């Protein structure tokens, strides 16, 4: 009996130290091999930028591997944002950011229908609430025109009130930006990566990069799951961009300065209160707090802009949330009677400069895609094209895929052909967001299987509605049995 129990204990300790042992082994050179083949590029990080880069390189004919340290993709900066496709009307003039947003916007329009992506052409009003801000509108308009966003126009208070009758009468005027749109911030990057996968790219999740060596020809990247060989590395590690550069390249080139943004989501009934995105007149440091509908049929207010050191702390605090609610009510008075559905916070991978930090280190076959401060969702497709351009300049070239597979994105838009609207939809599991069992099973067993509730939420919206899991958590715990890295609940024995 005694020996038996000792055995169990020692087994446990091995499991507990599995990670460090794995790391030790890999550095000791008898590492498990993640994949035998030599890839053209390895993309580090499956955030929205990594997903778009993987897609672009795959379509251009490169053999791509993607390494993601999270159990699910989009688990860092990309898990929380404003879900807006920006025109770039207010991006810094002459910046790479502006160019990428513009190209990203154009490509999104071009691929939208074939990939089944949604776009709600809500438009935006940059609203002036003070006389100072009112005086600023003319220059915001002029700058937008200079950047080629020529449909931007001034709107007086009366016209604004006619278009947005629920907006507070304190609005003094606005700049109308018709091109600003609402999109699904998760289904888009998921389908970018799925298109890469279905055309040959390999994706490894729960796979954290530890170190790497470059022998002048190829990289040998060591991860928690084994090693991988590739000719080029593209660092899309978001909040850890500088850390990865330092670990593998020896120097960071920039510092990530995480900037937290908290949001409040109001009940779906509130989404009828505005039609356009309500932007404030931006300050030097931030775009400010936005009131925006989502394609999921909610109304949200945020983000804040809070500088912090932590790359993981996406906590919310009641004082800030109350201030956001007050800000929302000041702009849309009818929000005072609307319940809160959700609160969340995201971390933007800002850097020590107000610009994307994208650079090629040719002698080491390395491209850094860092400091994608807050416009990653809008810029991703443009960034991917720009990065491929840098790659070609390094002398690499491939033959474009002649006839790439075109997958369809998850359809989670309230107004779109959701699964529950289809014949034979079956059981609705999440009642608030009308998520079907079929959608949940597809997410659990599909090409990018959900391995956490967070991942499942991003693929289906389950538990993201007003009850936040009151009704469906138990059913979800049952449906996800054996699927999640960390189970929602433990089964009780029947004794």
């Amino acid at each position, binding site marked *: 009996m005694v020996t038996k129990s000792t055995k169990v204990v020692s087994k446990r300790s091995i499991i507990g130290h599995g990670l460090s042992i794995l790391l030790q082994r890999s550095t000791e050179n008898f590492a498990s091999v993640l994949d035998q083949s030599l890839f053209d590029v390895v993309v580090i990080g499956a955030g929205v930028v990594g997903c778009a880069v993987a897609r672009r390189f795959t379509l251009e004919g490169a053999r791509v591997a993607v390494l993601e340290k999270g159990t699910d993709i989009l688990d860092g900066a990309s898990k929380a944002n404003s879900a807006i496709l920006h025109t770039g009307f207010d991006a810094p003039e002459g910046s790479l950011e502006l160019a990428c947003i513009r190209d990203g916007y154009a490509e999104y329009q071009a691929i939208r229908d074939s990939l089944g992506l949604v776009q709600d052409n809500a438009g935006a009003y940059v609203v002036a609430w003070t006389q100072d801000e009112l005086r600023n509108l003319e220059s915001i308009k002029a700058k937008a025109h200079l950047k080629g966003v020529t449909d931007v126009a001034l709107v007086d208070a009366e016209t604004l009130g006619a278009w947005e009758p629920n907006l507070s009468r304190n609005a003094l005027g606005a700049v109308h930006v018709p091109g600003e749109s609402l999109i699904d911030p998760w289904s888009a990057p998921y389908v970018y990566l799925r298109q890469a996968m279905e055309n040959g790219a390999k994706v490894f999740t729960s796979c954290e990069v530890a170190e790497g060596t470059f022998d002048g020809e190829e990289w040998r990247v060591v991860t928690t799951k084994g090693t991988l060989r590739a000719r080029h590395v593209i660092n899309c590690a978001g909040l850890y961009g500088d850390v990865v550069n330092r670990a593998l390249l020896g120097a960071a080139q920039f510092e990530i300065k995480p900037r937290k943004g908290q949001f409040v989501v109001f009940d779906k009934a509130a989404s009828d209160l505005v039609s356009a995105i309500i932007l404030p007149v931006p300050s030097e440091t931030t775009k400010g707090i936005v009131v925006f509908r989502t394609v999921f049929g909610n109304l949200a207010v945020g983000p804040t802009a809070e500088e912090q050191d932590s790359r993981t702390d996406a906590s919310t605090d009641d004082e800030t949330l109350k201030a956001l609610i007050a800000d929302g009510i000041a702009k849309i008075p009818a929000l005072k009677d609307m319940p809160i559905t959700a609160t969340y916070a995201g971390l933007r991978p800002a850097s020590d400069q107000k610009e994307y930090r994208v650079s090629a280190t040719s002698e080491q076959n390395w491209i850094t895609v860092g400091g994608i401060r807050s416009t990653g969702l809008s810029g991703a497709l443009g960034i991917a094209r720009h990065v491929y351009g840098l790659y070609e300049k390094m002398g690499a070239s491939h033959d474009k895929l002649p006839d790439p597979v075109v997958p369809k994105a998850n359809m989670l838009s309230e107004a779109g052909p959701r699964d529950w609207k289809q014949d034979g939809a079956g059981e609705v599991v999440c009642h608030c967001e009308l998520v079907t069992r079929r959608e949940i099973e597809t997410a659990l067993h599909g090409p990018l299987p959900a391995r956490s509730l967070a991942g499942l939420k991003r693929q289906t919206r389950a538990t993201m509605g007003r009850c936040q899991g009151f009704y469906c958590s138990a059913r979800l715990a049952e449906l996800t049995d054996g699927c999640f890295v960390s189970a929602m609940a433990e089964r*009780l024995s029947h004794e």
Partner: protein
Amino acid sequence: MSDVDVAIIGGGPAGLAAASALKSAGVERVVVLEREAEAGGIPRHCGHPPFGLREFNRIMTGPTYAERLVASAQTAGVEIRTLTTVVEARAQGKLRLATPTGVTELNAKRVILATGVRETPRSARLVSGARVSGVLNTGALQSMVYLKNRRPFQRPVIFGSELVAFSAILTCRHARIRPIAMIEANKHVTARWPCALFPRLAGVALHTGTRLVEILGDTKVEGVVVEDAKGQISRLECDGVILSGQFTPEAALARSGHLLVDPATGGPQVDQWGRLSDPTYFATGNVLRPVETAGWSWSEGGRTGQWVARDLAGLLPESEPSVRVSVNDHRLRFAMPQNIVLSQDVGGMRDIQLRVAQHVDGDLIAECDGKKIWGRKLRAGPEQRVLVQTHEIAAACAGRDVALRISEPAD
């Protein structure tokens, strides 16, 4: 052209009782639309007594009680459609349904909302801290334990001390979960004696006058920070958080559609027959207001069924003329019904139901145009049932809107 006489949205105690009463009153086509796989409502996952005393003259557990309710509705000839979600409620009883076979429309002469209540989730409480797994309402915990035989944690902290918090303790015990503390922000336990004794009997430390400051953890709950009445901050190690109580009506269908909602109750605005702003719609049970027992909701449902049957026969008074009843005091949370139809018919809810937001010891007075028209002593605590006879207010108001407030007794 209507498909059914009455469609009842929600198959809990109130909805099933209303359906049974409609059948007893001779209404032919009565259908209960239930979005879950089984009808029965919240009692389905309350695996403990006491349920059923009022309805079946015996004490039973929630699931047994739910089965009895379903069986008696079926015996009465009620059609129950499960896995059927009403996604839209439009004017004049036009419903849009999501069903396992697809989307369909249902036209009903009358619709009864019996969608119940749920606890306020973490988000709407604006709780600070990390967004981690292991933060649940009691309802979700009960479903996991009693319906799915699972436990999400082993050493949680329970927040709140309404009746449902004591149900949380019972649920934990059933699943061999050991709550490490019950924490109440107010000075006193909300549920009345003898409940206050229960945590101690169950070996759960009770801390009143203590508030949740922050939830800690990386991906799962690792602890909570609380602050006691003296401002002392402490950290409790736990692996879960149960946010109990703070019930709110599940009134999404009304709020997202054309029906008026009362911000005070969070449920639809109704008159004394439970009739909504669109008079083809009625409401009953806990969607009217947070929160009453299953037995109370069942009784309410039965009466609503009778009223709707009378309405179908053309025997209910018109919705107008009516006066509005509202609360005008931060110590009063709500008054329901919000409208009183002035008619010779003395039927409908006998009482206006009120709740106080804090302990009150004073006079409850009704005012019209700023002048007192009615008053009585009031001594009550949060979540305690406060009733004011409808006909007294109707008689005193002389056709004017009524505001209720508390007046301190003169020193």
